[in-house]
């Protein structure tokens, strides 16, 4: 009764082939990541040191470290987060918890999708026009971070809205039925259960912001400055722009220096992403329903 027929055998063979095919495709995903990491490590690993991280570039940026750029990137990302996270979360809460389905929310949703699709160089030019010139912030951390914030706002909004949506409607209704207002329900039931997804979205935003170059190069990041940023109206160096500069704009840079800069940049991004993934796994384990 259970003897294998020729049809069974054929099905099994075809199924094996497809399985192999899909597995190969999956394996190919890892290749670029591996190649990038290995190349960077081999070619740039030698320049990495505490000194490299914590000293300024010297000799017309052909030697020394990357500290001003590293610090500048931290500034830019932090200020951008301070702007985009509150706005993004508030907007997502409004869209998901308060707003009904009407033309207004449809327009906003359309705007979010389009905002996410705007090329970063266009954001950069917008940033120049709006923040540098119109608002008169000059080329400064504030102008650059505002540009970054607007660019990454859709990420925060979408991630927040998705995690709010994942909280079952029945929880809200149960709470409303007890006489709770929308805000009481959001504060006591919805947000505590969505906070993990929101944080994950924020961390992903950080890793995206860290690597952006175009939006900051006209708005606040500079080629080189001997000063460390003291406040949000200063100009600053930034890691991503610095990488562009030392690999293409400055003659006589030793070959391993740009690789070292790239390694630091990608390490920052990978570390943020790993934190995000670890966090998500931790919270998934603690899922409450």
């Amino acid at each position, binding site marked *: 009764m259970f003897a294998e027929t020729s049809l069974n055998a054929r099905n099994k063979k075809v199924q094996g082939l497809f399985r192999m095919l899909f597995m190969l495709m999956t394996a190919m995903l890892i290749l670029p990541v591996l190649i990038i990491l290995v190349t960077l490590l081999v070619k740039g690993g030698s320049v990495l040191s505490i000194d490299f991280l914590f000293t300024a570039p010297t000799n017309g940026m052909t030697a020394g470290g990357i500290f001003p750029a590293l610090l500048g990137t931290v500034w830019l990302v932090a200020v951008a987060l301070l702007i985009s996270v509150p706005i993004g979360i508030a907007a997502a809460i409004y869209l998901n918890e308060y707003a009904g389905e009407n033309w207004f929310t449809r327009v906003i949703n359309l705007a979010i999708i389009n905002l996410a699709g705007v090329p970063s160089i266009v954001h950069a030019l917008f940033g120049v026009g709006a923040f540098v010139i119109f608002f008169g912030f000059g080329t400064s951390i504030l102008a650059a971070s505002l540009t970054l914030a607007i660019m990454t706002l859709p990420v925060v909004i979408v991630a927040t809205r998705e995690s709010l949506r994942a909280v079952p409607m029945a929880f809200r209704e149960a*709470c409303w*039925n*007890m006489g709770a207002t929308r*805000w009481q329900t959001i504060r006591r039931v919805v947000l*505590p259960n969505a906070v993990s997804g929101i944080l994950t979205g924020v961390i992903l935003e950080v890793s995206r912001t860290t690597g952006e170059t175009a939006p900051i190069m006209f708005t606040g990041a500079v080629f080189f400055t001997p000063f460390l940023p003291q406040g949000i109206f200063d100009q600053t160096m930034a890691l991503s722009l610095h990488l562009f500069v030392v690999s293409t704009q400055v003659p006589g840079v030793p070959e391993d220096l740009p690789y070292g800069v790239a390694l630091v940049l990608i390490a920052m991004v990978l570390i943020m992403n790993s934190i995000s993934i670890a966090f998500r796994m931790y919270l998934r384990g603690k899922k409450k*329903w």
Partner: protein
Amino acid sequence: MVDGPAPAVALQGDSEMSRAHGDIPLTLEVRDLDIRYGTEAALSGVSLEVRQHEIFGIIGPANAGKTSFLKALNRMDLFNSAMHVTGDIRFNGHEVRQLKNIYALRSRIGVVFPLPVGLPMTVYENVALAPRLRGIRNKSELDIIVERCLARAALWDEVKDRLNSLGSLLSGGQQQRLTIARALSQDPELLMLDEFSIAVDPVTTMRIEDVLKELRKEMTILLVTNLVQQARRLADRTAFFLDGRCVEVGETEDLFTGAVQDPRTRDYIEGRFG
């Protein structure tokens, strides 16, 4: 938080309007209630009265409009833009659809639905939520409320040692009793139960039924059930809903002993359909 404690006086105060029916005050007076979802009618022309401190049963087959009826009472139509309610619903004499303070209305009506909803917080927090919304902060006061409500819902003994574990991880039957405890923690004037026993085992169902008989001294109970015998065991009066209409309202015993009866009611009660 922002809204502060609900003004209790506004709703409880005058029961003049609700004394229309002899000496027995009415918790609910429903006149010509129509409910539709989009263009589809769910309930039409329902009029009935629910007296204070009675257990009022509603029986009827699926799709008779029983749940929609409950939803109209505490303004759950506001959750669903497709749901339209017309007609007159008076709760303690107040037309519910003219009440500005729907939060006060809802806090006076406890609701238990067929599928248990354990909120994703601890057992304790589940039951302490409604008192907290009312503005009770004192821990010992909350402790007392939580214990009393859990005990009344026949759940205290099972969870007293794990009040801090997640309510949403209890078994289905326990979650349902948690839902009942939560409804009781509102200290409601009206308790609405919609087929509460679907997810509960028979023994627990019996225990909850005993609890309901006790609770009746303190509140009015509206019991929607698909178990005809449950209505018979508990309800003082019973309404029979069919196809979006209220066919008959009567003393439960009359319905079951064959006095004044629509033939459709008799058929349903005797199990010939539904």
